[in-house]
């Protein structure tokens, strides 16, 4: 039975990682065309720095990701603080509204935003991508922050106010530190969503500007620049390292907690 379970896990892991292994292999493939192996090369990794299209798309992905994640997190934080004092009905309405882009299909969100931007007379480009990304990131930021804000205790904030802190410094010294983990996870999740989005970007971007995902899609018809494989392989290694650090950290924290629990029991 145990063997069967391990085989099953192994098969699923193979299924999930097969295309990733193919991509990594392609990043070392001397041939420009996928599907034929003509030898090992590091050319694409060296060319990564020189490709202007990839650099421009990468810069767009990065700046749009950071800006939209910041603004979405900020808006979610402000809204969550406002929702604390609202009746349950109003809260339900706001929650439902903020979940619409999450539950809606990306293609519908994309074309509806495109129709809105054009209807308002905006020119599709960098700004419209940014706005659209805030729209799709906001539900994720709300999901991270709202439960934390709603379960927060008023007492410390009230104590700070009673002891003479103004609302701003009470917020900065009491509420913000308590919410910081939620804010950070909201920011990271928003960034990931923004950087990985293709469909909404595709419909709201207009001509002449690309993020990494739309750049890849544009290249798909003519053959993807192998530099893209190199970039994604590097990115995957980065994620791997990050995950490993997280695991080690988690283990250290758990051991520490267990040790403390042991001490307290003794």
């Amino acid at each position, binding site marked *: 039975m145990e063997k069967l*379970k391990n085989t099953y896990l192994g098969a699923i892991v193979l299924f999930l990682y097969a295309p*990733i292994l*193919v991509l990594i292999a392609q990043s070392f493939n001397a041939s420009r065309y996928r599907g034929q192996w003509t030898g090992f090369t590091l050319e694409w990794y060296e060319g990564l720095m020189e490709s202007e299209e990839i650099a421009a798309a990468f810069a767009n992905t990065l700046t749009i990701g950071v800006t939209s994640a910041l603004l979405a997190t900020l808006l979610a934080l402000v809204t969550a603080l*406002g929702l604390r004092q609202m009746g349950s009905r109003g809260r339900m309405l706001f929650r439902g509204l903020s979940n619409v882009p999450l539950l*809606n299909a990306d293609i*519908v969100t994309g074309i509806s935003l495109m*129709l809105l931007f054009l209807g308002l007379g905006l020119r599709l480009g960098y700004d419209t991508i940014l706005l659209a990304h805030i729209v799709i990131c906001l539900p994720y930021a709300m999901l991270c922050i709202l439960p934390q804000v709603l379960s927060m205790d*008023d007492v410390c904030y*009230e104590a700070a106010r009673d002891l003479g802190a103004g609302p701003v410094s009470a917020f900065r010294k009491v509420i913000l530190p308590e919410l910081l983990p939620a804010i950070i996870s909201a920011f990271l999740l928003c960034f990931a969503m923004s950087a990985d989005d293709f469909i909404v970007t595709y419909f709201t971007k207009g001509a002449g500007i690309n993020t990494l995902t739309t750049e890849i899609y544009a290249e798909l018809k003519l053959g993807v620049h192998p530099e893209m494989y190199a970039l*994604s392989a590097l990115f995957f290694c980065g994620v791997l390292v990050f995950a490993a650090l997280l695991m080690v950290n988690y283990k250290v924290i758990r051991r520490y907690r267990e040790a403390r629990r042991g001490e307290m029991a003794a």
Partner: protein
Amino acid sequence: MNERLSGRLASHSFLALPFALWAALFIVLPLFFVLWTGLTDGAGHFTLEHLSTVLQIEYLRALGLSATLALLSTFICLVLAYPLCLILRERKERRGLLVFMLFLLPLWMNSLLTTMAWQTIMEKHGIINMLLSALELPEVHLINTPAAIVIGMVYNFLPYMVLPLYVSISRIDESIIEAARDLGANHFQTLRRVLLPLSLPGIVSGSTMVFIPALTTFVISALLGGNKVLLVGNIIEQEFTAAYDWQLGSALSMVLMVFIILNILLEAFTDSGEQGRKGRP
């Protein structure tokens, strides 16, 4: 004290105002733009012409095919993810995090690139056929068929099934399962009478999270279907980017919105059912 406290805090409700404006402008208004475009002609007069065009056989066929493939991939995702989550649940204590990470990492790869890698794996002289011919087995024809699209959908959306399902399965109390076993239920009976009903909210929410993107995708079908298999997503994309018939594209999107609303209702229904059960003493 309490009154004073709530009085002081009540003044903060205005903080929700920016979001109200935001939601009106960027969440509600865009959907009205879709309805407007789908329901008017070029001069702004109300018409049902575009909606009736959707009822033509080629669009209905695309809708039917999309729904079939999406249902099929949702079902396959469920069948693959359920045993997986049961195994992960058992291993929660030992190396659970490692295994779970292992299943989340592929989410970080760009889905366009991984889907393209599936092209390399499944094409005529691709990796699967190379392996098969090395083993002197007959080649399989996968690329540009609905089967290839289903494989691509399952690959892309499996994590969306695993996450909610795992949350709901890992919450089931071990003692309930042990009680079922002690009372003489075999594996199958425990699964059917205990595990499945208790994990129903996870099943429903995972299924909706897979079904909607699978129903509306145009990337997976474009890459793995080679424009030989047309799904609703492909038609909408073409109407907006190539054919410039935005009215028809909007009408098709309205049909998709009906599916989405049905899905939300389904999820809300099972959700409240769960709460009702919890509320019972």
